[in-house]
């Protein structure tokens, strides 16, 4: 039937498309000897562009095969969901441990993953800061200012964005500190902040664009690296960073996806890929892309880039990710209570 139609010559478009498609199949670039897929979250795009290049060169000097690293970026939860559903990631580099735990729970990654690499398997850290418009017209200095009426706060949706969960928990930690662990007060405080939120984008990048390009809001709660990057991309004459008095130590973790690397036979190179993140070169690249390096020597070198901040960790103050997730972000959790429809 198709051929009859084609012969009559009125499927030019489809025919041309088909020809192009066939041409494409044969002209696919010859694959490098090894390919890895790094499934990562939103703000790491620039970091891994640079790091992948460096690692490929390093791996060659180690006598390895030519290695090509493919990247996939998106919201942390979405990316974890894709890996759970069978996206062939050799490596996951996500925004928070809970998302990797979710993959581990379904058997793709061994449950002990976080102990396999130093420092909770997070080779670099970041924190949550405020990005405000130049001159800080609303005078935003600390978390309390976000709860004031008339201030518009931009943050992504904590249900879908890893960064937003760090935002939320940083505010929560501050509130607990301020009111001596009075959770009712903390909840009220968060409620006030979220009343000032006019848009909940699904990912960190969406929020940054809403704030910078769409001109909405007075303050953006953001990853520190993301804040630096948007100043670099969009101009220091428009934006500035405010570091609150207390904020959270965000530890984006990395892991090898055991099931996939064992099936593909890429475990060796995948592990080397993650280990190299801890090397001096890897740490330097992280620092250059505004992630706080773990290595003290490199950290000292970039001391003047990162503001000294008073940081708490999720483990010491909130009892770890599993507990925090369950309490705050599960269905009917504290975040849902804050967001009762009609409230």
């Amino acid at each position, binding site marked *: 039937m198709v051929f009859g139609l084609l012969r009559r010559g009125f499927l030019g478009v489809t025919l041309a498309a088909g020809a192009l498609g066939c041409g494409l199949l044969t002209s696919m670039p010859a694959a490098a000897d090894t390919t890895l897929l790094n499934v990562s979250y939103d703000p790491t795009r620039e970091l891994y562009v640079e790091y992948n290049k460096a690692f490929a060169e390093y791996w060659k000097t180690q006598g390895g095969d030519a290695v090509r690293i493919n990247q996939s970026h998106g*919201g942390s*939860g*979405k990316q*974890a*969901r894709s890996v*759970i559903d069978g996206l062939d990631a050799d490596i996951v580099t996500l925004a928070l441990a809970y998302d990797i735990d*979710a993959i581990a729970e379904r058997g793709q990654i061994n449950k002990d993953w976080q102990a396999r690499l130093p420092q909770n398997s997070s080779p670099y850290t970041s924190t949550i800061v405020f990005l405000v418009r130049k001159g800080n017209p609303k005078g935003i200095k600390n978390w309390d200012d976000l709860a004031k009426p008339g201030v518009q706060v931009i943050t992504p*949706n904590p*249900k*879908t964005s890893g960064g937003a969960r760090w935002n939320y928990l940083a505010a929560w930690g501050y509130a607990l500190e301020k009111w001596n662990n009075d959770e009712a007060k903390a909840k009220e405080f968060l409620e006030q902040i979220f009343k000032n*939120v*006019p*848009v*909940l*984008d*699904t990912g960190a990048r969406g929020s940054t664009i*809403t704030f910078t*390009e*769409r*001109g*909405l809001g007075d303050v953006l709660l953001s990853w520190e690296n993301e804040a630096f990057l948007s100043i670099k991309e969009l101009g220091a004459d428009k934006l500035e960073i405010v570091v609150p008095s207390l904020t959270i130590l965000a530890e984006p973790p990395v892991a090898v996806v055991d099931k996939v690397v064992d099936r593909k036979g890429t475990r060796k190179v995948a592990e080397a890929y993650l280990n190299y993140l801890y090397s001096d070169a890897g740490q330097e690249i992280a620092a250059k892309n505004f992630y706080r390096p773990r290595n003290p020597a490199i950290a000292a070198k970039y001391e003047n880039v990162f503001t000294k901040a008073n940081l708490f960790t999720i483990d010491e103050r909130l009892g770890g990710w599993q507990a925090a997730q369950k309490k705050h*972000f599960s*269905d*009917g959790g504290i975040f*849902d209570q804050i*967001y*009762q*429809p*009609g*409230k």
Partner: protein
Amino acid sequence: MTDISLRSAPQMRVGRWSLRKPSVLPGFGLTLGFTLCYLSLIVLIPLAGLILAAAGLGWSGFWSAVTTPRVLAAFRVSFGTSMIAALINAVFGLMVAWVLVRYSFPGKKIVDAIVDLPFALPTAVAGIALTALYSRNGWIGSWLEPMGIKVAFTPIGIIVALTFIGLPFVVRTVQPVLQDLAPEEEEAAVSLGATRWQTFCRVIFPAILPALMTGTALAFARAVGEFGSVIFIAGNMPGISEIIPLLIIIKLEQFDYAGATAIATLMLMVSFAMLLAINMLQAWMRSRHAG
């Protein structure tokens, strides 16, 4: 004709349970078989998988998953904005169809062609473009904002996006009917002393009403499920501007497959019911047209 039905008589005598009326034309078995196979493979089996997965929740599990306040609010947002957008399209779609059929003006051909744009323009592109237009520093937004009207990141933004998506449906269903309207009836009405407005209300409008309703229903059905163009402009606030398709995605990203399947199944049933209604409307339209 009689000859023909006689010729095919042996085939049809399967009994009174015969599935189809007789016809001499060949290829029924082949095309219907292929249609059913393809339909099953691409549409029915995957959708059945969805319903099976939802059935695994049990009735109470299903019910509690789709009646949480957040889900209910999202349904309200989705249906409310789609309804408003469909109504806007009903009014302006009728106007566009009327102008295109009845009047001539320079550039009419171009206007006629551009009506189909939302069919062809990718929804994500539409979403990004509309957001850029209607945000406070956009071409339209910067003009509306001083008047206190916020469009982007509010439910109004959703309505704008859904109006864009649904626009061609009303125009394209009303247009042919309007074109075929016999002028005699209008002339008769006029000669009986009716004013132009009376002629429109009593003669023209009833004739195009089924088409108008079908087009509006189609625009509504398409709007309820729309995702790509809405997420950029909506603001996505739970309970205020969070639509059902987004909520399904959010549930998936929280690894809540059960919740996502339950909501998706409910939506699927709603879509199916709406389509049945539309097809009945269309049957009505045809019978009106014929009679």
